[in-house]
């Protein structure tokens, strides 16, 4: 089972006819050379952000979540915003590696490994937040149905518990998917490296993979199955995250559009983040011929499509608020757009819906500097989308006497910064230690890589093509 269906004449996936040896060399180069000055600067910035986040985390754990700006009625704020934001970032990776695989989109090979790694690190980052939001993270074991001295079990009908299952399954499956993709590449690196230490590490990690066709056959099938189960999984994860809100009875949260709206938003924000990082990475690691402008253009098209889906959801929420005749619903949406947090609403709308419209123009889609600016705006806009959903729905409660504004504290901001530091530290370490493009998949889509003859074993010693 493989990517053999060719529907349209495509632009070559790898620019300038590259030999297999060159592919090995180009992709393995970052793992074989000393880090450049640029990498060190980026790494130090990430580490600094991570340390600030670490201090904020220490405060949070030691003094409790009273260190955050959360109050009544805004009991959910940065913690949940960051959780939803980072989980969403992860979704692009699975979309690229699983859904585009099922759709036979060969162009995915150039960016799949990298996007999958981003998924894993984003889910790791996201996972921190709900756990620290419980207030006593060292008791997180109670989140899973383990026998305990109280004899009581978790509530299986709570969306918060569904989250626990969805996020942990998502992480595990993404990690396995990424891991089996790495095995053949690690085998290539094992046979390529000259360093004894590296060879030992790669040998162990590649588990003695030999590129044997009897293994490839099962490997390809396993990859297809994983892609098949990851596809509904990725859709389920953000749907379940949206249930955290939709299952409650709060106006602004209690809507049936939430699951598809969240999934579209997740893919939108994920592609925004993948593009942001990819534009820098392909330049720094000299992979412009493997991660081409064509890739970026295709991703911009997806951004345009998902951005409009998100825009449709914004509009539909307003429409339903009017059409339902529910005064609470109407109040909350008018308050969103024109109330005290109107600035955040308009940041969201302009970054997610208005600016991405520029991608209708081919010149802009293929212009790297403009793409860079737009995708950063997408990241900002999607973070504010979660801010708008959570904070503006909560700060005007049913009871006007308990209305309150939300102001983040330094600890909140430190944790937000720290989450970026955590994510980018892992990402930078990944970039220098593992092949950031799948070597075996790229080789398989190079022109002339696949045989033009398709013989069967013939006992007469004859073969037919």
């Amino acid at each position: 089972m493989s990517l053999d269906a060719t529907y349209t004449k495509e632009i070559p996936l790898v620019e300038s006819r590259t030999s297999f040896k060159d592919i090995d060399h180009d992709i393995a180069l970052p793992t074989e050379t000393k880090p450049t000055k640029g990498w060190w600067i980026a790494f130090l910035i990430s580490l600094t952000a991570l340390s600030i986040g670490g201090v904020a985390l220490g405060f949070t754990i030691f003094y409790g979540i009273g260190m955050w700006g959360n109050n009544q009625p805004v009991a959910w704020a940065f913690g949940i915003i960051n959780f939803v934001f980072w989980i969403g970032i992860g979704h692009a990776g699975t979309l690229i590696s699983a859904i585009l695989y099922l759709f036979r989109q060969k162009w995915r090979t150039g960016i799949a490994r990298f996007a999958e790694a981003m998924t894993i690190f984003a889910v790791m980052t996201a996972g921190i937040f709900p756990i620290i939001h419980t207030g006593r993270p060292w008791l997180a074991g109670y989140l899973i149905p383990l026998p305990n001295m109280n004899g009581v079990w978790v509530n299986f009908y709570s969306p918060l518990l569904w989250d626990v299952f969805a996020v942990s399954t998502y992480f595990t499956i993404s990690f396995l998917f990424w891991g089996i993709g790495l095995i053949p590449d690690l085998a290539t690196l094992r046979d390529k490296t000259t360093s004894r230490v590296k060879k030992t590490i790669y040998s162990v990690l590649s588990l003695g993979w030999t590129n044997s066709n009897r293994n490839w056959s099962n490997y390809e099938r396993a990859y297809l199955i994983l892609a098949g189960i990851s596809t509904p999984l990725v859709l389920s994860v953000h749907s379940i995250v949206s249930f955290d809100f939709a299952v409650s009875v709060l106006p602004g949260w209690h809507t049936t559009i939430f699951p598809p709206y969240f999934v579209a938003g997740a893919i939108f924000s994920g592609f925004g983040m993948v593009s942001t990082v990819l534009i820098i990475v392909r330049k720094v690691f000299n992979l412009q011929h493997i991660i081409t402008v064509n890739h970026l253009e295709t991703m911009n098209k997806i951004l345009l499509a998902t951005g409009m889906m998100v825009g449709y959801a914004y509009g539909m929420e307003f429409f339903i608020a009017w059409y339902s005749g529910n005064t609470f619903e109407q109040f909350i949406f008018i308050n969103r757009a024109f109330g005290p947090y109107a600035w955040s609403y308009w940041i969201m709308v302009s970054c997610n819906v208005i600016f991405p419209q520029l991608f209708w123009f081919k010149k802009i889609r293929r212009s790297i500097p403009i793409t860079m600016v737009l995708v950063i705006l997408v990241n900002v806009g999607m973070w504010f989308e979660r801010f708008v959903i959570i904070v503006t729905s909560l700060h005007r409660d049913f009871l006007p006497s308990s209305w309150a504004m939300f102001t983040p504290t330094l600890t909140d901001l430190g944790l937000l910064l720290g989450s970026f530091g955590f994510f980018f530290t892992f990402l930078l370490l990944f970039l220098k230690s593992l092949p950031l493009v799948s070597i075996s998949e790229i080789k398989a889509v190079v022109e002339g890589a696949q045989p033009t003859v398709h013989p069967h074993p013939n006992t007469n010693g004859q073969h037919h093509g």
Partner: protein
Amino acid sequence: MLKKIINKVKEFDTVRDEDRRSNKLYGKAALYNTPNEITLAAAEVAGKGYKNFDVYTPYPMHGMDDAMGMPPPKIGYVSFIFGITGTGLALLMMIWMSSINYPNIIGGKPFFGLPGAIPITFESTVLLCGIATVLGLIILFSKMPKLNSPLNNTEFMSRVTSDKFGLVIQADDEKYIEDEVLKLFSETKAFEVQDIYYRESNLIQKTPLFDWRFTAAIIGTALITAVVSYVTLNYVLYETVPFNWMWKQGRIDAQSRSDFFPNKSGMRDPVTGTVARGFMPYEYAGMPDSAVKLLSNPVAVTKKSIERGQERFNIYCSPCHGYFGDGDGRLRDQFPKPPSLHNQKVKNWSDGNIFHVITNGQNVMPSYAEQVSKEDRWAIVNYIRALQRAKDASEEDLEKAK
């Protein structure tokens, strides 16, 4: 000294076990230049009836399974079986936990409801299916990890993991005849043929389980894990703020010192001239004669009051007086033995006298006015009366009890 060690390591490095080859042939390996050549060669070799052969390509090659005459991969069965197992396990878990083992009413909903159980059932299906697929692929179908495969660490392997296409016919194949294999390779345009020999370590049958280093590593890991978890759970997580489960709090415990108050006592005296509710001072303190004369039992002898009296008696009196008032309490050798409550003197006492002793104390017995409320003291008196009667029961009492 350091140089010596480095040399020693280098020496060890160059003669690592797994690189040493025996003179037993594993098979003949041929290298090909193009995808078409290798595909045709594979069909040729399969057509000649060889069984123990394999093709090695840097990436999965389309149509190779057909060329080699391989059956379709079976890993899907593993995924399916484990996926279904995940579904079933999740449903059984939720049914058992939420409606059998600990039924919990949540919002008046049924203990088990299928719609609400779908998300976890789905996630569990995917989780088990995914893990089984990957483990099945690695362990069952690829027989990995196999770090000591004879092919690893060969020139052949470093070519097929990079840019060439290889074909190996194993020497243990029934049809293996050296000349014919070589002829086949040259006919199919192989540009290079290599002999692959087994490693010496491949030929020694030994189980790592009985290697002392392996056992030591397992025991060492277990010990370290045990010590680290013990220290973490009992000292780091249990004693340290904020992991101490809130048993250490910023409050002042009874009878503890506090520098906050001028008299350094954590406990506060009542405001002068006030009396706490239920703690009216005892008006016959130190006046047993008046008490005996003037006090009468206000608590009626009912089953309830006797049961209350029994409970209080067992808590406050039984340590010295014993559960039945015989004076043989649990503190008998550590504290002066009190007289039996069944002697004639106590039997003859009025209720007020017993009440007075409990309230006021007598000899080494302190006052229990602070610990036992007034009503409870009277209830204890009633219970003591019941004990006295039971200990000395007459035939008539037995008749009545019937």
